[in-house]
């Protein structure tokens, strides 16, 4: 908060500048002269930006397109007619008719002197420097022919800081340009490093010279990517390769749904570094710790490299592909014959490519003949799909990540954005600091982004609907709703408007435990915003009232007309790299690809014609129902591709029982997971870096995934495994490459109709992209909603399925942490990440801990009606009283032993976010 206040005025100015920028970038162009050549550019650009975009060389060291320019290195100087002295081009905007001269003898002399001064106090060990040939300072020394130290004198003997697993800092090489500090402050928001000392003594270090591990550093590596002088290095990759030895392969990060485009540096079939193009793609060159440092799993010795079957003694035995797939196809055929197609279920994967998910859907429907196909989206955003399809007609993010800067207000509800979608978190934090964006956080914990929030409503888990209804009532009573939008773009408002009338601020405060005044303030801020975005994630969806939660948010956005524009919309943040794609591809029991209902005869007919097989018409079972089916005996075989049910599903003790009963359980994965231990047959798949394909990120962006290394042993790309299996089962599935699969997807999926590999080579495309030449859609529902008119649907607050009582007096809510991912199949193999986040911590409020006699880092037993786990305590006041939080990553302390499998009646999503537990110190 102090940051916002102190920069209010500056933020307003920037906002105005930004307004010019938005207008400017579309049409207004001004004419300037650079070296006597006329150039047209937009008035918001700095001289440096205008030159760079026209390929005119200007030396610079402290400029990075991801950061606000600062003008400290004094190298980007130019001559401007009418100004007597040299001008720093990065902090001077262009003006109509401006006459600029670059690289004049006078300027070159000044640059040279500046460079000589910098070099005089910079070690000249380029030949062994990790950044050699990838160093802006070295390049400039080459261009300006600065060979040696001109100014001899005292030089620095500064510190090397490397007491952490990831970031190596050699301050002797630091040129104090401040890029890393600005990156840490203004983009990442960690503020872990800063200038200390003065004059000659000045250097950039963490406060009190402490280890980065003790600061708020998130090890995102963006300081490394911005350093122009080799002072910062990625520690795990040091000494692995020289930059000219590596082949860079551009692909997409395999972790969360942001879909950061990464370049894998490959040497000898190994990933030796990871980078990202600065200023480009959805992530603009920014990464998080998992994307930069979390890819060791690819070459882990624990990868499965050959097929295995379980012997009678229960041991795993290596077999040939032929044998393994014969067993699978024979058994599937036998089970199908004996019990019918619907006794078989398939779990597809949000980690695999679109092409693979599409083939899995085809395999389930055309080969096995069942709609029993689902994937982990059921456990995360099923309620988004059901909720947003009813209200808007399309269950995906309505906006793009780039849109955040056009927004005045962002509501973040049920999303720990900076930890679960770090790169989107950076963009929000940057906009707060650069453009004065206001954030309203609604979360039971002080998640890191609350530091930048204007208002934080700290509610009791499971009371979100009451809060949203309360906000709607305040907005309605104060007349802040958008009547024109409601009349022209939406329907059923009259029926709907009664539903919030009873939710007075007092009542909401009582139900949810939030501060009444803050609630009113939040409603006013959102209601009076020109453009407002809502970001939400599992905190909204993983409830028995998940669908209603989503509907309530959609209602709120429609009521204020905050939809269908730049900077205004409703945005579910998807958790997995390709969970959006897996849904799009029809790895769902009720939808074929492109959200085309399986019960619709016309649609089915089209697929039947293409696939040459009759398709099942009845909706299939969801993940949770499949497990139920296995338990009750109606499901006899499950084929899982890349999912780890044994940690990700609720009430996992029950899942284990169910899996034991199966006649055939096939697991196709890259590691032997907790789920794999139950398998009869294990098929080794290829990971993201070992195959071609596409992922669709959270803002509907279809991006190319490229093969960078060979898969271990005889492991195969998942799409090839599906094809071979299908052919063995008598249905011919033959593709030469994944491009051909994409062509088939495009032919059957209208929203992917215009997507093919040739276009994707050039740029990512956001669906709907209906035909060749369609540029894709960055904002949904701009003129009409996908379903025509937006539909207001009344909702009401219902308490969670499980409430606290004397025996279980605390509410447990689960989630993720920054340095681990999901069931740790991947992050668990990365040494550094496990050094940062080694074990499960159960977060307990200070007052509660005091009452229970629990101190920080005590071992605590957490027990629910379904089971008990132990974990170390993390005692602080960041979490609401009466609430405890646990991440679900850790297999040795699995939170999902405790969680409640109660389902949302429509979306069938389990209530991971609320269950009642007891705590005991042991």
């Amino acid at each position, binding site marked *: 908060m102090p940051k916002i206040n102190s920069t209010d005025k500056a933020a307003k100015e920037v906002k105005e500048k930004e307004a010019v920028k938005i207008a400017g970038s579309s049409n207004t162009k001004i004419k300037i002269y650079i070296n006597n050549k006329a150039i047209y550019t937009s008035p918001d650009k700095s001289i440096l930006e205008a030159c760079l975009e026209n390929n005119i060389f200007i030396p610079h060291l402290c400029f990075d397109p991801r950061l606000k320019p600062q003008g400290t290195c004094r190298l980007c100087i130019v001559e401007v007619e009418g100004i007597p002295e040299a001008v720093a081009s990065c902090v001077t905007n262009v003006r109509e008719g401006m006459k600029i001269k670059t690289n004049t003898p006078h300027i070159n002399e000044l640059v040279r002197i500046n460079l000589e001064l910098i070099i005089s106090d910079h070690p000249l060990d380029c030949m062994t420097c990790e950044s050699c040939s990838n160093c802006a300072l070295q390049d400039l020394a080459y261009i300006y022919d600065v060979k040696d130290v001109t100014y001899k004198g005292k030089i620095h003997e500064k510190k090397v800081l490397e007491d952490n697993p990831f970031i190596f800092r050699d301050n002797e090489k630091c040129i104090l340009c401040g890029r890393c500090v600005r990156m840490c402050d203004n983009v990442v928001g960690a503020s872990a490093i800063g200038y*200390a000392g003065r004059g000659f003594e000045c250097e950039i270090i963490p406060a009190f010279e402490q280890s980065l591990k003790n600061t708020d550093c998130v090890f995102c590596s963006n300081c490394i990517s911005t350093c122009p002088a080799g002072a910062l290095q990625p520690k795990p990759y040091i000494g692995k390769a020289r930059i000219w030895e590596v082949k860079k392969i551009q692909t997409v990060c395999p972790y969360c749904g942001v879909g950061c485009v990464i370049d894998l540096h490959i040497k000898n079939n190994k990933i030796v570094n990871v980078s990202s193009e600065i200023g480009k793609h959805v992530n603009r060159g920014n990464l998080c710790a998992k994307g930069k440092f979390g890819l060791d799993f690819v070459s882990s010795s624990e990868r499965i490299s050959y097929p295995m079957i379980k012997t009678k003694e229960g041991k795993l035995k290596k077999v040939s592909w032929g044998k393994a797939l014969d067993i699978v196809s024979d058994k599937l055929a036998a089970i199908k014959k004996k019990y019918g197609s619907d006794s078989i279920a398939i779990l597809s994967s949000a980690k695999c490519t679109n092409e693979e998910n599409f083939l899995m859907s085809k395999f389930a429907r055309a080969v096995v003949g069942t709609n029993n196909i689902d994937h982990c989206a059921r456990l995360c955003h099923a309620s988004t799909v059901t909720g947003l399809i009813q209200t808007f007609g399309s269950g995906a993010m309505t906006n793009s990540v780039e849109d955040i800067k056009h927004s005045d207000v962002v509501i973040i509800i049920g999303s720990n954005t900076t930890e679960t979608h770090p790169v989107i978190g950076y963009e929000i934090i940057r906009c707060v600091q650069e453009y004065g964006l206001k954030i309203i956080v609604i979360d039971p914990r002080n998640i890191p982004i609350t530091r930048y929030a204007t208002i934080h409503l700290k509610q009791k888990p499971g009371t979100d609907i009451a809060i949203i209804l309360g906000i709607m009532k305040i907005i309605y009573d104060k007349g802040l709703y958008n009547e024109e939008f409601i009349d022209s773009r939406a329907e059923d408002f009259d029926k709907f408007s009664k539903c919030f009338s009873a939710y007075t601020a007092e009542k909401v405060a009582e139900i949810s435990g939030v501060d009444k005044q803050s609630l009113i303030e939040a409603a006013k801020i959102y209601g009076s915003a020109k453009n407002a975005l809502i970001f939400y994630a599992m905190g909204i969806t993983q409830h028995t009232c998940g669908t209603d939660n989503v509907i309530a948010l959609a209602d709120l956005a429609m009521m204020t007309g905050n939809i269908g524009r730049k900077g205004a919309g409703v945005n579910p943040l998807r958790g997995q790299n390709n969970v959006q794609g897996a849904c799009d591809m029809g790895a769902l029991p009720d939808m074929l690809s492109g959200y085309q209902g399986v019960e619709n005869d016309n649609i089915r007919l089209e697929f039947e014609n293409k696939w040459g097989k009759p398709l099942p018409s009845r909706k299939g079972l969801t993940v949770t129902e499949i497990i139920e089916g296995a338990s009750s005996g109606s499901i006899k075989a499950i084929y899982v591709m890349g999912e780890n049910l044994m940690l990700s599903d609720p009430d996992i003790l029950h899942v284990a029982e169910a899996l034991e009963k199966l006649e055939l359980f096939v697991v196709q994965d890259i590691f032997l997971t907790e789920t794999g231990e139950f398998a009869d047959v294990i098929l080794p798949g290829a990971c993201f870096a070992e195959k071609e394909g596409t992922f669709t990120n959270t803002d509907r962006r279809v991006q190319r995934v490229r093969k960078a290394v060979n898969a271990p042993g005889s492991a195969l790309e998942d799409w090839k495994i599906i094809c071979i299996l299908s052919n063995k089962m008598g249905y011919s599935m033959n593709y030469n490459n994944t491009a051909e699969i994409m062509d088939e997807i495009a032919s059957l999926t209208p929203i992917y109709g215009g997507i093919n590999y040739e276009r994707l080579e050039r740029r990512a495309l956001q669906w709907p992209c209906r035909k060749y030449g369609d540029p894709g859609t960055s904002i949904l529902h701009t003129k009409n909603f996908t379903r025509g008119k937006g539909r207001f649907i009344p909702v009401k607050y219902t308490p969670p399925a499980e409430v606290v009582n004397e025996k279980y007096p605390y509410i447990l809510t689960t989630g993720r942490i920054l340095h681990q991912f999901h069931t740790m199949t991947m992050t668990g193999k990365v040494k550094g990440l496990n050094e940062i986040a080694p074990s499960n911590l159960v977060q307990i409020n200070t007052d509660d801990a005091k009452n229970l006699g629990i101190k920080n880092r005590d071992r605590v037993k957490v027990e629910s009606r379904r089971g008990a786990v132990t974990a170390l305590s993390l005692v602080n006041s960041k979490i609401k009283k009466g609430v405890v939080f646990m991440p679900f990553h850790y297999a040795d302390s699995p939170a999902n032993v405790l969680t409640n499998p109660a389902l949302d009646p429509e979306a069938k999503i389990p209530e991971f976010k609320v269950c009642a537990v007891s705590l005991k110190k042991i």
Partner: protein
Amino acid sequence: MRIADLPRYELQPEEVKRIDEIIKKYKGKKGALIPILQKIQKDIGFIPVEAQRKVAKMLGIPEKDVYGVSTFYSFFSMIPRGRNNIRACLGTACFVKGGKKIVDRIIKELGIEPGQTTADREYSLQVNRCFGACGLAPIIVINDKLYQKVNPEEVIGIIYSCKK
């Protein structure tokens, strides 16, 4: 000097109380950081790391911002100052007029380098660049009192005479 080399200082209960009072007085005001650090420096004699952490936490600002300010201004010290703080000027005018000799004399007498404090915490020595009193050069400042046109012979006498 490395922070890691500093002896760990446990804040005394009355110091904790005093720091709390100081921060409360300025909290919420714009530009509160420097006055808070000044007051802590004055009342406690130095600004230990623990106090800086407390300031950062209570003001809700990053620790590195507090540390950046406390290391920027020579007025702030992270090691305890003596009951009597001697500041000698080595700005251009004082230097030319023999300031260096004065500093050397003090170093010899007290056995401490600039930036250090005597073991009995009686005296501490700092070297500053220009107090803006060049017409009176060379000068020293002891406990906020300025002594003008000092010569190396009489400086020890001055120091002992103004002992608190």
